[in-house]
């Protein structure tokens, strides 16, 4: 397949993904706004005023980056896992398998679809945050880079989950039992400086902590973790997952007999 044809095929998959989640916007774009809005009201405004400052910032200011990141992680992951599993379930994955598209085009199409939903939700939630506080961004480039790289990483994770999923239960197990606990324990609501030393070390084994802190640095200019280390970690995980996805696609795991 020529480069231009691959580009057309990539656009086709990406546009189909965008069409899919915008068609069902009530299920994909609105719920994260409601959930995060409730966090802003309850934790940020009501409880936050009693908690007092965190790392020198109002509690609302402190949790906003983590909550945006949480929405991006959840949505980029769930977009790819549900969409790709659905193509397996409805057998329309065969449309892609019989076509001459290289596997990396399929993968990139789905990943960019997941990234776009993650970033769309991130933008909506950020817009919502502006209603509750004056939003300042310390470093726009770091903010954009971290959020985009994180969306890529979790889109790839969603793809792996979908490849192995054999039922709708299988696509909710990882988000429920792995992603949600890791996100809540990833420094969204607190600084790990508050924890005893032992728990700080345990927390540092949680990759989401690095992403939340790097993103918070972009907003507030403060982080529990060096930003460079976070970026390297996200890049290494993404490269590893990309290679693993390609291996699964080339072998036909979960998609070919």
């Amino acid at each position, binding site marked *: 397949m020529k480069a231009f044809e691959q580009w057309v095929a990539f656009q086709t998959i990406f546009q189909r993904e965008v069409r899919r989640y915008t068609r069902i916007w009530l299920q994909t774009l609105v719920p994260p706004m409601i959930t995060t809005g409730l966090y802003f009201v309850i934790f940020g405004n009501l409880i936050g005023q009693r908690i007092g400052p965190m790392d020198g910032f109002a509690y609302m200011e402190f949790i906003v980056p983590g909550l945006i990141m949480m929405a991006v992680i959840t949505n980029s992951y769930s977009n790819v896992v549900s969409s790709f599993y659905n193509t397996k379930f409805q057998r329309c994955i065969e449309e892609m*398998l019989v076509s001459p598209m290289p596997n990396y085009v399929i993968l990139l199409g789905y990943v960019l679809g997941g990234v776009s939903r993650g970033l769309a939700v991130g933008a909506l939630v950020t817009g919502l945050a502006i209603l509750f506080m004056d939003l300042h961004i310390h470093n726009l480039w770091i903010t954009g880079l971290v959020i985009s790289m994180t969306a890529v990483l979790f889109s790839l994770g969603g793809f792996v989950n979908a490849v192995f999923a054999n039922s709708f239960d299988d696509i909710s197990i990882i988000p429920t039992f792995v992603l949600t606990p890791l996100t809540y324990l990833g420094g969204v609501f607190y600084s790990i400086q508050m924890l005893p030393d032992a728990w700080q070390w345990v927390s540092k084994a949680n990759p989401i902590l690095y992403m939340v802190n790097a993103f918070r640095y972009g907003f507030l200019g403060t982080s529990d973790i060096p930003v460079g280390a976070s970026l390297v970690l996200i890049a290494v995980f993404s490269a590893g997952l990309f290679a693993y996805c390609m291996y699964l696609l080339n072998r036909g795991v979960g998609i070919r007999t």
Partner: protein
Amino acid sequence: MSSALSIRNLRKVYSGGFEALKGIDLEVEQGQFLALLGPNGAGKSTTIGIISGLVNKSSGSIAVFGRDIDRDFSGAKREIGVVPQEFNFNQFERVADIVATQAGMYGLPRKLATQRTETYLHRLGLWDKRNERSRFLSGGMKRRLMIARALVHEPRLLILDEPTAGVDIELRRSMWSFLRQLNAEGTTIILTTHYLEEAESLCRQIAIIDGGEIVVNTETKTLLQRMNTETFILDIDEPCEAAPAADGYAVRKIDSTTLEVDVVKDQGLNQLFSQLMTQGIQVISMRNKANRLEELFVSLIEGNGATTAEP
């Protein structure tokens, strides 16, 4: 002129150890209209799956218009259009989007994809339904949608896996007409079907696969010439007490106005009618007891005795 499809010693062993294909060879010339017949589990769908990239082969080689799938699968796939047995499109997408998306997956630019989508939705009688969600189409329309989708990149080889299963007679006839026209325009067609009348009516070549092996691969007329005996049902004008005697023919009485007679190849029917006439018996109408190809198919499969179930 290279073959449209050339299969050499193709084997497929599933992970459980079941050998679905035992080294088949099949040559399909360009412009051919081939029926691939076989009982359930014979290996038809596995063969189609391997050709189209849905099933990994265990060994052997396949070339599509001279392109080996191990060396240039992308090029080979471009030449193939596949219409599967089961509906395999997104039930929530619009009809036109399904066809245009498939065009995009073959690298057709948007403008051309839109033109082709319109062309094939018109040809398959689905243009009025272009904005419908696919799940709201009738069964026959869904089948036609899959044909339109398979044709949108204008493949030179079209493979249809039981395209008329569960389709009413009128629609089946119109599909036959469309496929004949497509074949006349130069598209090589491979068809699997359980309707042997369909194979006899449409296809110039027939391959029969059974137990993972090709047991017959020849021209339809050559295959039909193999039949030694045909059984006819005769409707007669006056009731008869017993089966009339006819020299050289085995005549049986079904009921008072219906007879069944075995006619050996080259024996002809004139002698039979003459003998019945002399006994005052007029034949009003006559038909084959069963489809000719069906009789032959059953005898070949029973003779092979290798039918197995696919996992």
